[in-house]
């Protein structure tokens, strides 16, 4: 059934393709602004090569970078018996072949994340703030949500997306800076070719400013959908949606910001570690759906803890006909 979920991420895939198109267009426009004839193609190649280099780095050492950035330390069954037990319980419920490594982050803000491209080499990390604040059932809900990210292959998926956002940001920055400091050199001259160039330069400048914003919005849409799905899987694994619901409630009431949080790591956490400043924009520009909405969906699931139960609750709470869970998963569980 996990396999079915993986295969049926059509909507997320479309968003990912959309992000890819933004990246390729940016490469094309920047390249064309230097040389209208052959530059576009070279720009695309440059953008893709940069993307793949960054991707290789992320896939080979993303996990260790993330753990180091958040100052996480590995713990065993003797250090935190309850945490370790809860992780093992969720591993068994999910039928994962091997035990994820358990990490603890010394931070008073309640949060958790999962890492690892491969379900056999995965990591679950929680903050000490979370451990202090949650009951056993609530901790179980949080851990189930993280394990679900691993099972649904969200980490692999989100890495593909995060690196794309990063590549677009780097390309735009380099281009804008080079135009700011080196723009004068190309400014002179009045031949026909240079005139065409000037138009392409303006297009490229506009694109370099807009592309990072566009790709961010697409990225947020992918990330939010993944959060709902991980909540649905968590309810199914624990058969107790109230645990996660009340954990999320506690998280939303806590005021502490995660000190070690970084923008690029946000989608991997259970709740957005960086609290949004304004409320109006939060729906479009957040990696996570609003907590109160996630809580209401979980609480209106009733006795049906399967994917179809979550789907119904989601549609009732958000008043949308949109599907969160792929249809093929609904019929098998």
């Amino acid at each position, binding site marked *: 059934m996990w396999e079915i979920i993986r295969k049926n991420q059509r909507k997320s895939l479309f968003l990912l393709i959309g992000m890819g198109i933004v990246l390729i267009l940016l490469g094309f426009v920047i390249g064309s602004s230097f040389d209208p004839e052959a530059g576009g193609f070279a720009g695309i190649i440059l953008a893709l090569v940069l993307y793949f280099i960054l991707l290789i780095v992320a896939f080979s050492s993303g996990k260790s970078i993330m753990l180091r950035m958040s100052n996480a330390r590995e713990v065993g069954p003797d250090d935190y018996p309850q945490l370790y037990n809860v992780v093992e319980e969720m591993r068994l*419920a999910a039928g994962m072949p091997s035990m994820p490594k358990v990490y603890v982050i010394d931070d008073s803000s309640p949060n958790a994340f999962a890492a690892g491209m491969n379900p056999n080499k995965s990591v679950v990390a929680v903050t000490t703030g979370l451990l202090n604040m949650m009951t056993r059932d609530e901790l179980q809900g949080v851990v189930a949500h993280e394990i679900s990210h691993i099972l649904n292959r969200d980490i692999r998926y989100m890495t593909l997306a995060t690196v794309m956002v990063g590549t677009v940001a780097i390309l735009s920055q380099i281009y804008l800076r080079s135009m700011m400091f080196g723009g004068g050199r190309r400014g002179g001259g009045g031949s026909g070719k240079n005139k065409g160039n000037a138009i392409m330069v303006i297009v490229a400048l506009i694109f370099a400013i807009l592309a990072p914003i566009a790709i961010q919005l697409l990225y947020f849409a992918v990330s939010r959908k993944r959060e709902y799905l991980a909540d649905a899987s968590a309810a199914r694994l624990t058969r107790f949606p109230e645990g996660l619901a009340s954990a999320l409630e506690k998280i939303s009431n806590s005021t502490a910001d995660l000190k070690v949080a970084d923008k690029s790591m946000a989608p991997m956490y259970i709740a957005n570690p960086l609290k949004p400043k304004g409320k109006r924009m939060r729906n479009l520009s957040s990696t996570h759906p609003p907590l109160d909405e996630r809580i209401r969906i979980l609480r209106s699931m009733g006795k049906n803890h399967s994917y179809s139960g979550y789907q119904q609750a989601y549609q009732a709470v958000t008043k949308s006909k949109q599907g969160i869970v792929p249809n093929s998963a609904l019929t098998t569980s």
Partner: protein
Amino acid sequence: MTLIIILAVAIILTAILVGMYNSLVRLRNQVKNAWAQIDVQLKRRYDLIPNLIETVKGYMKHERETLENVTRMRAQAMETSGVADKAKAEGMLTSALGQLKIAVENYPDLKANQNFLALQEELTSTENKISFARQNYNDQVLFFNNKTEVFPSNIIAGMFGFKKEDFFEIDNPAERVVPKVSF
């Protein structure tokens, strides 16, 4: 020409049959693996019980019958084999332990004992693990059994003797839900 067509059809058919056979084998292995996961946790619980009895014995002078019942059910469960019988015996052991948990409520001294508290987390967690492993096992059995019943893989299942597996079911309806144990 006809020979080539016949040959091609034969190769395609063989590939399909091999594919179905392999997916049956894979699903059956998943069932076996899921069972092994339950088995590990059941053994863990057998190991924990003598420690638990040893710890509580000193405090619980008036509960000899309850304690003996737990010990007896443990011995019985350990001897039983076969999924359906095992499930029944384990269900009885779980309810005997449940009675012990209720009895513990009357002994505040015991509930303050560090050794007991550690054992309690271990036992609670082991019982949760049994439930969660059972949940996964039953899912895997459902997938496998469906595969042995639906056409056309049921033909392969019949030819190679893939038999339906038993669910790990517990009779007591209250035990069907994952217990939210907190002594």
